[in-house]
């Protein structure tokens, strides 16, 4: 994307005012999408964003500037702007010679998005609309969206790291509205992988559209969700959001270092039921949060965070690991070149258990079964977190019975982790997610087997 000697020149310029560390992050991203709604192909859109972000670190201070002008003049101007914020008394240092860092990509792309004719993308949308509407006259509205992106990055820093990655992602979603006597209900399904158009060789659009429509239809007959504390069984796949919120964010070193996490200072301690082994794995082949190189030039890693209930390690980016005299865990990510990297999750999941999921439900007298989760949110300092249920049922006498309406569940991370008393043997990854932190969104994956929490607060309206 940019000549090596220009990168070196930029790093040298960035260190001139006494910086201890400098980094150049160059990104060239192309994205395209096609939107179908209300019976029409509404719009195709394509875009390109290209630029560089430069940071300079002195002591505890980071100076940052970005530019869409990646000519020599543009890069040097940005380097000086980043350096000016961190002017120190020290003499200027020189960057180490660049050495190429490589890592095998967990994602093998066969059909790059730019090589796919637009009409093929559009055809998928029309197909999804037809299938969803055929599920019943009560389906009154359908929208479908196709999106792809190709993001090339180059990261180089004054420690001598020089790395590149080429990240492709393809995403497809269907949303339905069903209308009945009790008003409108919605159902959504999505699939996404860090690969190209070959995604649609392995994914059945019909199946996806059917499930979205059925989700909306089921809820037409749903009763209000119960209210109060009760056992909750979470189905395999989508349940990963629970861990993403209950402890994932709390294990990010930037929050831990500021004492803004309930998990600060607990390495080596038992923080969860012994059934729980939590892993964050950026190398997980073809999963939504996977990549070869993180946004700081570090190869993706598989990191065991909690093993049999014991806290093993946090997740780290470059800045936080430097301060702690250790190496990054490959979790330094950023939304785009216009922002600083932070500690972020990749694919976060709970390792498989041993129990037959059927037995878990039969063993639950009364409670709620959550088949599909929506998003969530956590306050890492208190550990309190919420997550939404987009498809859920009552459990009565060990059986899944009536559907219930949407709502949030609320719990406290450390408490909930200790209340997991059953773990199924049916591990699966969930839907592609976008994790938001500090206003930045990055693609993440999650997964779990079926599991039971002995008590969680269900936030419905039924007394």
């Amino acid at each position, binding site marked *: 994307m940019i000549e090596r000697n220009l990168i070196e020149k930029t790093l040298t310029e960035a260190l001139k005012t006494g910086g201890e560390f400098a980094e150049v992050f160059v990104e060239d991203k192309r994205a395209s999408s*096609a939107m179908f*709604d*209300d019976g*029409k*192909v509404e*719009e*195709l*859109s*394509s*875009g*390109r*964003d*290209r630029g560089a972000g430069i940071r300079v670190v002195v*002591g*505890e*201070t*980071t*100076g*940052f*500037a*970005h530019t*869409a002008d990646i000519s020599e003049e543009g890069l040097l101007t940005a380097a000086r*702007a*980043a350096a000016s*914020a*961190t002017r120190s008394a020290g003499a200027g240092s020189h960057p180490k010679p660049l050495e190429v860092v490589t890592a095998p990509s967990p994602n093998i792309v066969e059909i790059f998005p730019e090589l796919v004719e*637009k009409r093929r993308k*559009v055809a998928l949308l029309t197909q999804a609309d037809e299938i969803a509407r055929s599920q019943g006259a009560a389906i009154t509205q359908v929208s479908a969206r196709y999106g792809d992106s190709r993001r090339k990055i180059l990261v180089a820093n004054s420690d001598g790291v020089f790395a590149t990655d080429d990240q492709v992602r393809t995403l497809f979603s269907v949303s339905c509205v069903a*209308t009945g006597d009790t*008003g409108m*209900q919605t159902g959504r399904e999505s699939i996404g992988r860090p690969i190209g158009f070959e995604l649609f060789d392995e994914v059945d659009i019909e199946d996806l559209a059917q499930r979205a429509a059925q989700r909306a239809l089921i*809820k037409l007959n749903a009763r209000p*969700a119960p*209210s109060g504390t009760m056992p909750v069984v979470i189905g395999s796949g989508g349940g990963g959001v629970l861990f993403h919120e209950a402890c994932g964010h709390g294990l990010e070193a930037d929050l831990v270092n*500021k*004492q*803004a996490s*309930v998990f600060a200072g607990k390495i080596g301690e038992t923080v969860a039921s012994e059934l729980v082994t939590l892993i964050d794995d950026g190398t997980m082949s073809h999963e939504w949060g996977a990549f070869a190189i993180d946004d700081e030039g570090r190869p993706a890693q598989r990191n065991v965070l909690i093993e049999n209930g014991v806290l093993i390690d946090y997740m780290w980016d470059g800045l936080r690991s430097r301060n702690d005299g250790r190496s990054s865990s490959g979790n330094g990510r950023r939304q785009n070149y216009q922002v600083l990297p932070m500690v972020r999750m990749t694919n976060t999941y709970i390792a498989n258990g041993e129990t037959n999921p059927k037995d878990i439900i039969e063993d639950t007298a009364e409670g709620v079964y959550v088949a599909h989760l*929506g*998003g*969530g*949110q956590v306050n890492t*300092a*208190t550990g*309190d*977190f*919420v997550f*939404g249920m987009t498809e859920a049922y009552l459990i009565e006498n060990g059986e899944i019975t009536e559907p219930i*309406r*949407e*709502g*949030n569940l*609320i*719990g406290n991370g450390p408490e909930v982790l200790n209340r997991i008393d059953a773990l199924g043997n049916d591990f699966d990854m969930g839907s592609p997610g976008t994790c938001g932190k500090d206003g930045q969104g990055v693609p993440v994956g999650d997964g779990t087997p079926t599991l039971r929490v002995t008590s969680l*607060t*269900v*936030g*419905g*309206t039924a*007394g």
Partner: protein
Amino acid sequence: MQEELLRVAESVVGWANENEQVEVVAVHGKETEIRVYQGEIESFTAAESHGIGIRVVHGGRQGMAYAGTLEEKALAETFAEARDNASFGTPDQFMSIAEPDGVEPVSLELLDPALGSFANEEKIAMALELEKSICAADERIIGVESTEYVDSINTSAIVTTTGIRRASYEGGCYLAASSLATDGTDTQTGFGYSVGRNPHQLNIQKASDEAAERATRLLGAKKAESGRRTVILDPYVTAQFLAIIGSTLSGEALLKGRSLFADRDGDQVAASFLTMIDDPTDPDSFTATEVDGEGLASRRNVLIEEGTLTGFLHNSYTARALGTVSTGSAVRSYNSSPGVGPLALTLIPGERSQNQLIEEVGEGMLIQGIAGLHSGVNPVSGDFSAGAEGLMIRGGQLAEPIREVTIASTLQRMLLDIQNIGNDLERLPMMSTGVSIVVSDIMVSGA
């Protein structure tokens, strides 16, 4: 900058052939973000960015393309992509670029020269002072997780083949902090902020007091018993609900059968004293703007008047499709085509302070913060359920702190169950203005 953006947009519009309509949006943003931590600058970001969005409509089909640069070569590529994308849409008789509607924008003077001339050293000093002030406010404050000063100046120009040619700019700044407090066993967080058009309007003391009080008053919080209660929503919480209610009143939701208020025009949908307006022409509103996303003059729209639903928001497309006129409510960024939504929502304030409302309510709960609204509100069905924290109200006074509960109802019921509106309008760094409201019969789920 305005002239430069207009020139670029005009040159691209000039490439249109006679069979197509073209709309070009060109934007420029300048932002400073300063974060401080433990008396040091944690990060200093100086950012400047450009963007262009091009929409081509041909035979009732639209295509969109964008780029994060104004380079000549990129403009040509982007235009070609937009034109190509337009050939794949389904022909739609109502699809067209907006046309001038004769409404002149109100001059709001949203860029205060004092913002551009404020020195970086002074911005840094303000952030440091805020952090110091919070730490000194209460001995239970153990730190401030993040303290930031942010300012931005945004300029945009929009030019179309249909005769629209407008530019606008807006500047604003804010201070925000999130404090950490502990009583030895329990830890709580609290945020505080202050917004302004220029840094001289920022109130460090207000931001500090709020951040300290919000964290310390929650220390020792417990779950509440489940039950139906009357709650008071803090201004910040009300503002988040307003944004969602506003989105259900979009012409797009109506047109596509996704509005829970379809066929309710003229009905009583809220308490009789409630008036909700979307008024981007109020310069005190943080998101005030002179023009909307299609280059039409922004305007004051009354959505609910004394409890009666009086209208929906429209852009030029939804207006055309539904046989009405645009309300100047096109929302978009350079990388999207125009949607429809509120630009600056507010309720007309009532007469009581929050303290008076607490006294009048007698028994209930003050909701200080909510979590998970993005996953807990369904704007199509109206069901909502959100994580909540706050303080019990007993005997007309604030009592013990509460955490880890949810509040749930439907948006439809909540609007009708509003018992009172406070006089404490609060400008927030977001699209809606906050004010305390009293809502009865909310299900609180806890122990």
